[in-house]
């Protein structure tokens, strides 16, 4: 990129890095020098930001960068065969670039296409339902000089279930501007009161009452406030936000305008994960359209209310979905979560009051404006009102999106999606809970089992240890490293899990993991560490037989394998 275009604005750093990355496939030392000079920050600081994000590279990559999904859903759908096919066709291993500099091949955490696995991104365009044969065709096409756009897949969104009496909330007909028309009839206080009455709580997984969050932000006297949409959707197995953005981007924008109007903010930012870059154009066009019809920009509908909306793109880090890490990332920093000395509603983006909400939360807020809080709160249960989108993937007939009313049972959910023979459910993502058959009568609700959206189903044929190892690796790779329990703890637990898997641990050593997990839960700095050991603790509790089979009766030391290195060496000499 042209040096003249670089402004001394730290918040633009990620954008600049993307420009360099996109232009050459990597960020060179010269680029870093340029940025360091123009932004007046140490070279080591720029290096530190680059090395935090998965998609920024310091070494040249090929014309095409292929990222295959490493999630457990990809694996059970044959992801390993697809990976091998890529390696064979390209002649490279994971992490390498072919000698001609055409292809680089990488693995990455869940890319949000779980209902179409195995899937991969090539230069951030989606390729789904991959098979070795399809891989061969793709590579053949590209080697011949064919265009990537010509063969990238169009993604079909499967909305499998919504209220059949026309009482769905999110997936009903979208009438552009309806929410805003109702919004501007109300004063900001009234909007917040409406949110509170609706009972809407955060759909990103933490379920914090949205009305209350907005009220805190509104109460601040600060002139400058921000509305941020969390479209980082990084929890493996979730894809509901992708579908919302693709299906009803206008509803999201109206939800954000609602938030801005309520708290008195004039700026909004959508933090879109890099994996969803292919949705960016649609989102940008919709934003432009809203400007054109006067629903964004200055003096919206003559109401003396200004609201601008921009998009910022992430660069590959699950932890950036954590709201304070997201804010750090937006400010051009490493995406490390902040301490909770201040909440974003007090000091958020650029130290100004900020609301961060999930895509589904904003969409629901817009619907509440349109349909009224009474209608909204008539759905659901006492503690959790309205509807919830589930992204269901894995072993069932109908993977896809389900707009359920809170309160249905797990069994009802399984029946809806045509799942049989289910042994293990990873409920609410890797950070959520493990469910076994004993849990099938439990209710999906605030009273019993909440769900952020991800539901991954595994039948009896799946090796539970494959699942556990995959989830453990996910947390090890995605821990930001800032705090001891999560950084060191997850790694240590990973080692212990490996030992268990290799039949090398006693029952005592297996049970010990639970107390280690408690340390992470109690002491980690952010939700990632706090929830990262739920799955392993749950699994040990819910599948005792499995662990019993693996456990050693007595401590045994494998002397012969400890001597292998020695004998190998002396034999050679």
């Amino acid at each position, binding site marked *: 990129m042209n040096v003249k275009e670089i402004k001394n604005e730290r918040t633009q750093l990620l954008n600049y890095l993307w420009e360099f990355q996109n232009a050459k496939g990597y960020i060179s030392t010269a680029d870093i020098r340029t940025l360091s000079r123009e932004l*007046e*920050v*140490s*070279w*080591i*600081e720029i*290096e*530190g930001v680059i*090395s*935090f994000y998965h998609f920024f590279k310091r070494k040249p990559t090929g014309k095409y960068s292929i990222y295959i999904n490493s999630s457990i859903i990809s694996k059970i759908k044959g992801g390993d065969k697809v990976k091998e096919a890529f390696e064979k066709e390209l002649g490279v291993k994971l992490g390498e670039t072919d000698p001609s500099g055409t292809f680089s091949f990488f693995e990455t955490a869940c890319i949000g296409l779980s209902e179409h696995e195995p899937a991969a991104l090539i230069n951030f365009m989606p390729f789904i339902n991959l098979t070795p044969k399809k891989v061969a065709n793709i590579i053949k096409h590209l080697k011949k000089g064919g265009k990537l756009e010509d063969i990238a897949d169009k993604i079909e969104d499967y909305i499998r279930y919504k209220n059949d009496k026309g009482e769905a909330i999110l997936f009903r007909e979208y009438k552009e501007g309806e929410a805003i028309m109702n919004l501007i009839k109300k004063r900001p206080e009234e909007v917040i009161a409406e949110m509170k009455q609706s009972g809407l709580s955060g759909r990103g997984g933490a379920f914090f009452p949205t009305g209350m969050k907005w009220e805190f932000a509104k109460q601040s006297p600060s002139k400058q406030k921000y509305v941020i949409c969390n479209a980082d959707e990084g929890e493996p197995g979730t894809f509901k936000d992708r579908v919302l953005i693709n299906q009803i981007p206008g509803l999201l924008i109206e939800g954000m305008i609602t938030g801005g109007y309520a708290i008195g903010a004039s700026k909004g930012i959508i933090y879109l994960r890099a994996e969803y870059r292919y949705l960016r154009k649609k989102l940008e066009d919709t934003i432009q359209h809203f400007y054109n019809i006067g629903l964004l920009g200055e003096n919206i509908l003559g109401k003396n209310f200004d609201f601008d909306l921009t998009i910022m793109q992430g660069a590959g*880090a699950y932890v950036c979905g954590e709201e304070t890490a997201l804010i750090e990332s937006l400010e051009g920093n*490493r995406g*490390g979560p902040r*301490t*909770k*000395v*201040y909440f974003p509603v007090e000091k958020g983006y650029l130290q100004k009051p900020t609301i961060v909400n999930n895509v589904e939360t904003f969409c629901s807020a817009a619907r509440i404006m349109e349909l009224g809080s009474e209608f909204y709160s008539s759905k659901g249960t006492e503690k959790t009102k309205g509807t919830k989108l589930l992204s269901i993937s894995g072993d069932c007939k109908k993977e896809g999106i389900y707009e359920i009313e809170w309160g249905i049972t797990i069994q009802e959910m399984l029946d809806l999606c045509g799942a049989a023979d289910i042994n293990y459910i990873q409920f609410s993502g890797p950070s959520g809970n493990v469910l076994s058959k004993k849990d099938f009568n439990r209710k999906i609700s605030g009273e019993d089992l909440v769900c952020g959206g991800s539901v991954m189903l595994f039948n009896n044929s799946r090796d539970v240890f494959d699942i556990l190892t995959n989830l453990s690796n996910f947390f*090890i*790779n*995605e*821990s*930001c*490293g*800032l*705090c*001891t*329990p999560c*950084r*060191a*703890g*997850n*790694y*240590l637990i990973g*080692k212990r899990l490996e030992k268990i898997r290799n039949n090398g641990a006693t029952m005592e050593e297996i049970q*010990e993991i639970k107390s*280690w997990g*408690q*340390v992470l839960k*109690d*002491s*980690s*700095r952010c939700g990632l560490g706090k929830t990262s050991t739920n799955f392993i603790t749950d699994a040990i509790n819910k599948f005792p037989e499995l662990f019993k089979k693996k456990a050693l009766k007595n*401590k045994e*030391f494998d*002397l012969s394998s*400890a*001597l*292998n*290195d*020695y*004998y190998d*060496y*002396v034999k050679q*000499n």
Partner: protein
Amino acid sequence: MEERIVNIKIDGKSFQAIEGQSLIEAAKNNGFYIPTLCHFKEIYPPLGTCRVCTVNINGKPDTACTRKVFDGMNVEVNTPDILDNRKAIVEMLFAEGNHYCPACAKSGDCELQLKGYEMGISATRFPHLFEERPRDFKSERIFMEHNRCIQCMRCVHEVKTNDGDRVFYFQNRGHNMLVGIDYEKEKKLTDQQVLDAANLCPVGCIIAKGKTIAKPMGTRRFDTNKNIKWIEGTDLDIEIPKDGKKKIVATTSLAGCFGCHMSLLDIDLGILDVLELVEFNKSPLTDIKKFTKQCDIGIIEGGVANSENFEVLREFRKKCDIIVAIGECSIWGGMPAMRNTIPLKDCLEEAYLNSISSENGEDIIPYHEDIPKLLDKVYSIQDIIKVDYYIPGCAPNADHIWQMIKNILFGTKQKVEYADFKYD
């Protein structure tokens, strides 16, 4: 703004404190000590990275450094769960890095080591990882020993040139995170700023090159400074058992330096009293090579580096009712475990072929079936057998050892004083 005085409770006692004050400070003012590592009083907002200061606040765990005092705050600092939680975090840091205190310039003045003493850590519950991390000598005045970094963030946050540019910054993430140093900006620091950075680092990761330590850090038993009062070594005031039966003790040195055995002898004439109470069986102290009977206690120095160590250790477990690990080597590998991050092949070649003392053209690595076979790394004895007690230190002090042995053998309950526990 006017200061508001509010009521808080710590471990059941009621106090008054200033609203909004840091909980660490408020606790300290009221005589409650909450351990910290990353915390540095001048840094605000607090770094909150190490998580050692975890306490319960109105029933929920949180870090004391990041919390401000509010009316009705009810804090639990010293419940068994919380104490164990904190200890676990410090143990994680020891297991994660590579800490060979006897070879570290910061020993005696190290905040991590101090937490180890304070919390009475004898053996970490986590197996040590032994993963090699870089040592970076490239900048002119600073040596970065990443094996000791605890990622506390102090340097990242605080160390800046006079132009306000950062010198240190985190690189990579998660388990691979380390602190990068900007060589160019480092040149812009004054000599004093370099020293300040080294002092700011709670551990021995940032080392100011060429600054030898003029005087020993901390205090020790043999210091001539009369102002320090040490608790005198206690006499072995145990009644000789009526039946005249002495307890039988065996000792061995596996992969250790014999330092722990030397320390055993450090009770000087006290050894005569000991001999009234115990009888030594297999031990280098008696030069008895083979067990002649079942022993009450086996004291193990050193880790397990080869096949012979392994056999000896297993025999000890069989022949001794109680096994005590003494010294860091037996507890987790200790100094000999420095080789654990290096492939065995490289170790052998360095020792026999490429070392300064090996002759030109040397090409023999000794091998004979009678020579003990080297294991791929040095193991702690708890990797191999069940261990009943641990006596930490390198070497543990003589009084510490005997106090413990006495407690174990005769059921006495004498406290090991801090001065005896501290070995640096």
